[in-house]
């Protein structure tokens, strides 16, 4: 780490850093990125069942680095107290991802975040809390098509109506971080990545389409897909945690040169596997979401409200995205260009297909 870079950061190379979800998809890259920048005191928190090999191996690669593994459960206040002791920056990546149940998603995102915030209050040495949110929190309802979605855009006011437990949990997580920031003066930054792709997350984002009904319905069309390669995303989060003068800010993380949904799907089919897809024009997908929403209400939830107008606006409405703030305030630039990111991602997808 150069002197200039050191001056731009809120902590020095020996200050303790906590990374929750450190063995996860983004977390493991984030730990490597911190070590790469010369930070030598990284505490990694992971669930008991996590695979810790990659992070431990990363620690061994950097001479003089101290990578401490702590396993536990963020629902335990004692575990949170132990994890946050003496730390200067917390990168809070652990989250209830993928749960379909609202209480589970909420508990593993909001209650855990509150526990960490409370624990760090007791230690009084925290200089920044970095909370990882998501693009899923933004609402697009009142905006025209092709409008720019950036950090100034509103989040869902009634996230429970989206029918998406992850969105609900992330909106509430943002709220509690902001609340603790205001009430107790905890310095925080919120990072909202778009769809994070790369080896380790081989799925096709729902923004492109859905395969729920046996055939892949392509819903994105010409929409740009807000993707960010995992290493680029980790880099953005690292900078958000370290740069001076950004407390209380929100940063969206997306890469440059975003592909359209159609291009992304075409590349996926060409490079990973061929499958049949049917394109649904936006007017059709909107009508589908509207009808599903109405039927769900009329039938008292016989079909769950997973498709509705709020989700259509958030995921399938034509929207542009910006990473200007990330570049201007944090000096971030994507390390891995889109073409290289896709190459690695598709290779990983192919390997996964082969092993399946």
């Amino acid at each position, binding site marked *: 780490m150069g002197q200039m870079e050191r001056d731009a950061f809120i902590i020095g190379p020996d200050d303790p850093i906590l990374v929750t979800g450190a063995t996860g998809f983004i977390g493991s890259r984030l730990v490597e990125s911190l070590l790469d920048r010369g930070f030598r005191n990284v505490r990694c928190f992971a*669930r*008991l*069942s*996590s695979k810790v090999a990659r992070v431990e191996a990363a620690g061994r690669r950097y001479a003089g680095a101290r990578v401490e593994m702590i396993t536990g*459960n963020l629902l335990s206040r004692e575990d949170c107290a132990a994890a946050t002791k003496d730390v200067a920056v917390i990168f809070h990546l652990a989250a209830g991802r993928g749960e379909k*149940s*609202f*209480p*589970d998603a*909420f*508990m593993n995102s*909001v*209650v855990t975040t*509150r526990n960490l915030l409370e624990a760090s209050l007791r230690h009084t040495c925290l200089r920044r809390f970095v909370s990882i949110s998501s693009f899923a929190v933004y609402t697009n309802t009142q905006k025209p098509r092709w409008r720019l979605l950036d950090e100034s855009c509103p989040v869902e006011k009634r996230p*429970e109506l989206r029918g998406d437990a992850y969105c*609900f949990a992330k909106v*509430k997580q943002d709220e*509690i971080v902001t609340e603790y920031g205001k009430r107790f003066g905890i310095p925080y930054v919120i990072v909202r990545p778009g769809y994070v792709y790369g080896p380790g997350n081989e799925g096709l984002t729902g923004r492109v389409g859905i395969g729920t009904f046996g055939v892949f319905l392509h819903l994105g069309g010409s929409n740009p897909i807000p993707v960010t390669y995992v290493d680029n995303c980790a880099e953005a989060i690292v900078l958000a945690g370290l740069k001076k003068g950004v407390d209380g800010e929100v940063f969206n993380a997306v890469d440059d040169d975003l592909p359209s949904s159609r291009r992304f799907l075409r590349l996926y089919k060409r490079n990973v596997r061929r499958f049949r897809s049917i394109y649904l024009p936006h007017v059709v997908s909107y009508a589908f979401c509207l009808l599903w929403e109405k039927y769900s209400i*009329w*039938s*008292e*939830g*016989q079909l769950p409200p997973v498709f509705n107008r709020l989700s259509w606006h958030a995921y399938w409405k034509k929207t542009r995205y910006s990473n200007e703030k990330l570049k201007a305030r944090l000096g971030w630039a994507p390390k891995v260009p889109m073409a290289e990111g896709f190459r690695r991602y598709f290779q990983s997808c192919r390997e996964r297909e082969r092993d399946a």
Partner: protein
Amino acid sequence: MLKVAIVGCGKIADAHASQIQRIKGCEIVGVCDREPLMARQLHERFPVKRYFSDLTELLSDARPDVVHITTPPESHFDIARFCLEWGCHVYVEKPFTLHAEEAQILVALANEKGLKLTVGHDDQFSNVTRRMRTLVHSGYLGGVPVHMESYYCYDLGEPGYARALLGDKQHWVRRLPGGLLHNIISHGIARIAEFLTTDSPQVIAYGFVSPLLKRMDEREIVDELRVIICEEERTTAYFTFSSQMRPSIHQFRIYGQKNGLILDQDQETLIKLRGGRFKSYLEKFIPPVSFAEQYLGNLMKNARTFLARDFHMDSGKKYLIESFYRSITHGTPVPIQYREILLTARIMDTIFAQLNTQRSQVQAQGQMPSHAALTH
């Protein structure tokens, strides 16, 4: 208006709140969880008047008539007893209690106080199960059941999920006397208990850790269970729990002296098994046609129920809750007889006692006994 409260605001509480709000003549006056954030999130998402983090405050301030207990099983007994003592009717999620003695105490207390109790065996009230019950009560089997088979499987899913559950040595499921089984099998055991007539049938259980879990270095969680239940050399039953067999079914088969029935909970189908046989080759051709006709009939029934907006995944829960509320407001019988609740608890106690004995033997011998089944 019946005033309802929910204690415990986790995953299953959502299912309760969703169904309660569909029932006329009741309102959720309060929800409670030791974790105030959990109580608040349920309050925000459903039409709930207030939320609490203290049970006494809920009972004194919201004054519910009925309390639904949806907390982890180890707290069911204490909370249910507390609510009964406060004069509330109680719906307890499954498993009812950790031990049969506790179930007995709750039933006695409810009777003493003139209050009603039920347990969350909602599969017993799905559309297809109600159809089966009607047929059995109409005498279709030709008398008491001769034999029953209850399959209740559980797909541990992708190894990632299993790792999360199995990696946490402090997971509350591990603290239950019957571990993973304790949290799941009561649905399948209750199906058998409903049709038993004695209070203490003979139970022979055999359980083991599946090869999948062993490969994941798990030695404690039993995820394969086979049980034989017999009463007075008259009615017998097999119960199967498996995390490994495919398809991962939830089926109940019941055979009488005249006919039999096969209920498939997942597909919501009920198939009649005719006791008589056709002559010669006709037995090879006519029954398949009859089965095809019956499956088509099931399809039509399911489609009609769906179109009538009564085919929710939790329709059994709504029916059970509605019946329970009616038993409170109109004095009708409780939907699940206390005898059935107690018998289910006793059978489960016996199964877990035998599994513990097996485990002790294995630990003592350092290897699996050649025949581990024991009669309790």
